[in-house]
């Protein structure tokens, strides 16, 4: 019985392998990709890779869907340890520091040199704000593929109804709170419409809190060093208190954890008048919203600043020279002005390659959709995304506390102290291995 099913399964696997036509001597490579945006794009990715394979007969790339950004990190790490690394991965940009510290990804400077380019000429193609999340220790570890910033989305109809001017979205925290108060609708004790919603689920919550902390003049982490986060600081306390007060004092933002899709859903259904969410949702909102909407910079308190988001292409350690070269061809093709521009128009992410915005189809697109330009304009104020040693658990340390503050279980001050303590403990091995170690002492 055992041999029967095993035999059948093996036969099935073999048949599936044989069914795919492949040219002789083609290099087989795999591209791991997460689905950070609406699911239809996962299908677009397959089409994109098919186009690549058709135009590169000597390479056969397989697009491998790998779940969320966090799942993609997990799968990539596991595949490296199992000795089966893919030739390229679309990796959340804030994981690069950790992967570089652990030597799980390799710098691409040798490949850039082989193409006859200097590092400056190569990195100069991209918006400068993206580089701190791609160039680590002066080596190029990632090529930006699609990037985002948080944006403020407003429902223009609701603004008019509340006596506000939709052409002048709130620019400061004070204006944001004021507008949210006017926009919130209540029937007795029940809130029928929220003035403002922001996502606080894992991955998203930390990013939005980082945006607020930056707007409050703060820094989230040490951009030069992977073992320091600034959770227990006045600027972050201000940011978290602001969010908490919107929920518990002003009551213009729902309590408890809000998932990204739920926030978008509430905005589209008219149950939330404003939301702060990624520019990556822009195309979906534009295609779905049945009311006029506007987008604007994230409102500031002390300064205008937002973190970048999105993903870069990386190459894992342990690849053969042949696969690396094939993967590099794929990476350059995907990040070319034409392809990243196309992907940008399909998703709402902005194209990291500046030349994409000089192409005629992009110019026509931006004329038709001026909202898509806001995220690009906001790039002037953008700073790197939170990236440390063990990024995911260090990020979860603050997100767990954020969620309990929004649920009303904890006060901001004690929450931040707890988050700092947890994060410090997580980063301790790296800190002891680097900053706290006397050189030469073993």
């Amino acid at each position, binding site marked *: 019985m055992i041999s029967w099913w095993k035999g059948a399964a093996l036969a099935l696997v073999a048949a599936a392998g044989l069914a795919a036509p492949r040219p002789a001597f083609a290099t087989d490579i795999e591209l791991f990709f997460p689905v950070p945006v609406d699911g239809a794009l996962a299908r677009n990715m397959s089409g994109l890779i098919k186009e690549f394979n058709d135009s590169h007969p000597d390479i056969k790339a397989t697009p491998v869907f790998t779940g969320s950004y966090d799942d993609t990190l997990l799968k990539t790490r*596991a595949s490296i340890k199992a000795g089966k690394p893919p030739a390229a991965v679309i990796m959340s940009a804030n994981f690069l520091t950790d992967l570089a510290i652990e030597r799980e990804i390799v710098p691409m400077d040798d490949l850039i040199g082989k193409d006859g380019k200097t590092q400056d000429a190569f990195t100069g193609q991209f918006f400068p704000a993206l580089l701190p999340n791609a160039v680590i220790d002066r080596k190029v570890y990632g090529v930006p593929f699609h990037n985002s910033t948080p944006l403020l989305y407003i429902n223009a109809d609701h603004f008019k109804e509340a006596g506000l001017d939709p052409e002048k979205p709130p620019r400061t925290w004070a204006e944001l709170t004021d507008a949210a108060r006017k926009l919130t609708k209540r029937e007795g004790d029940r809130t029928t419409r929220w003035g403002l919603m922001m996502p606080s689920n894992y991955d998203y919550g930390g990013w939005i809190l980082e945006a607020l902390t930056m707007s409050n003049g703060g820094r989230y982490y040490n951009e030069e060093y992977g073992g320091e986060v600034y959770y227990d600081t006045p600027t972050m306390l201000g940011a978290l208190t602001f969010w908490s007060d919107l929920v518990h004092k002003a009551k213009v933002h729902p309590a408890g954890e809000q998932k990204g899709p739920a926030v978008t859903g509430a905005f589209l259904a008219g149950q939330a008048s404003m939301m702060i969410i990624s520019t990556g949702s822009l195309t979906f909102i534009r295609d779905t919203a049945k009311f006029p909407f506007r987008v604007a910079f994230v409102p500031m308190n002390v300064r205008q600043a937002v973190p970048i988001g999105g993903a870069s292409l990386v190459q894992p350690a342990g690849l053969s020279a042949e696969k690396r070269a094939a993967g590099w061809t794929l990476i350059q093709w995907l990040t070319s002005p034409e392809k990243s521009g196309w992907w940008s128009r399909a998703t709402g992410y902005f194209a990291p390659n500046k030349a994409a915005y000089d192409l005629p189809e992009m110019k026509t697109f931006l004329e038709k959709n001026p909202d898509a330009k806001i995220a690009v304009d906001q790039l002037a104020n953008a700073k790197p995304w939170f990236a440390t040693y063990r990024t995911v658990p260090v990020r979860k340390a603050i997100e767990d506390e954020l969620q309990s503050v929004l649920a009303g279980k904890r006060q901001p001050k004690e929450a931040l102290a707890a988050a700092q303590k947890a994060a410090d403990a997580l980063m301790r091995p790296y800190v002891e291995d680097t900053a706290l170690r006397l050189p030469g002492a073993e």
Partner: protein
Amino acid sequence: MSAAMQSGPVTREITPRIARWVVAGLALVWAVPFWWMLVAAFRPAGSGADASLLPSLTPTLANFAEAWASADFPLYFLNSAVLCAGILAVQLVTASLAGYVFARLEFPGRGFLFALFLVQLMLVPVVLLVPNLKTVAALGLYDTLPGVMAPYCATAFGTFLMRQSFREVPRELEDAAMIDGAGWWARIRLIYLPLTKPALVAFSIVSVTSHWNEFLWPLMVINSPDKRPLTLGLASFTLSAEGMQAWGLIAAGTFLVSLPLLAAFLIFQRRFVNSFLASGIK
């Protein structure tokens, strides 16, 4: 005296009625997500009433058509079926053999070994991802369906369940068979397995449903799109982190994925319930 006499029949009538209402209430709560899934799956896209439990006045099959077109469902169904059937076939053999050993054979260190076996139940599967994947790759099973099945060949839960069930079989039956000259294999096949059928069925249900719904481990092992089980196929067009989900499409896809299990449950309902009752899993 008369009061005490009267209270008896009265409580006997009220309590079952309350219990029935409570059960009905719980069943209703349990059914809400299913109902929502059905309603959402048939609702035209973009009607904006995503949270509503009221069915749309203009039901549509468009969501099903889109879900069906956007993923190779027949192939994913086949992959999931091969996975679940393969895992179950091996597990039934290993769990009943190991269960028999722990229930009936006397050997030094049996208690310790059994405890070691049960420790498996305490481990969070995530910590085993990398070691398991390394083993699977070393065996040449990376990116294959047998690679997904491999770690489940031995099952702590199944072994535990079969051991408990075998211990309830009267030893005299086995002794009688032994006197008639039956070997260990004949004794397991002719005495133990027929008498513990409810436990086997209950275990099979638990095994099939959990592997049918599994996501993370197949995600680690499988790369090729044509080897994806249903969960990966479904997730590849419904997951979204920064975007917004098309609920109608997700509901339709989820309905397609859960349909075989739902159908099996409806057809074999009575037998399922009986086997769970008999085996003590509730």
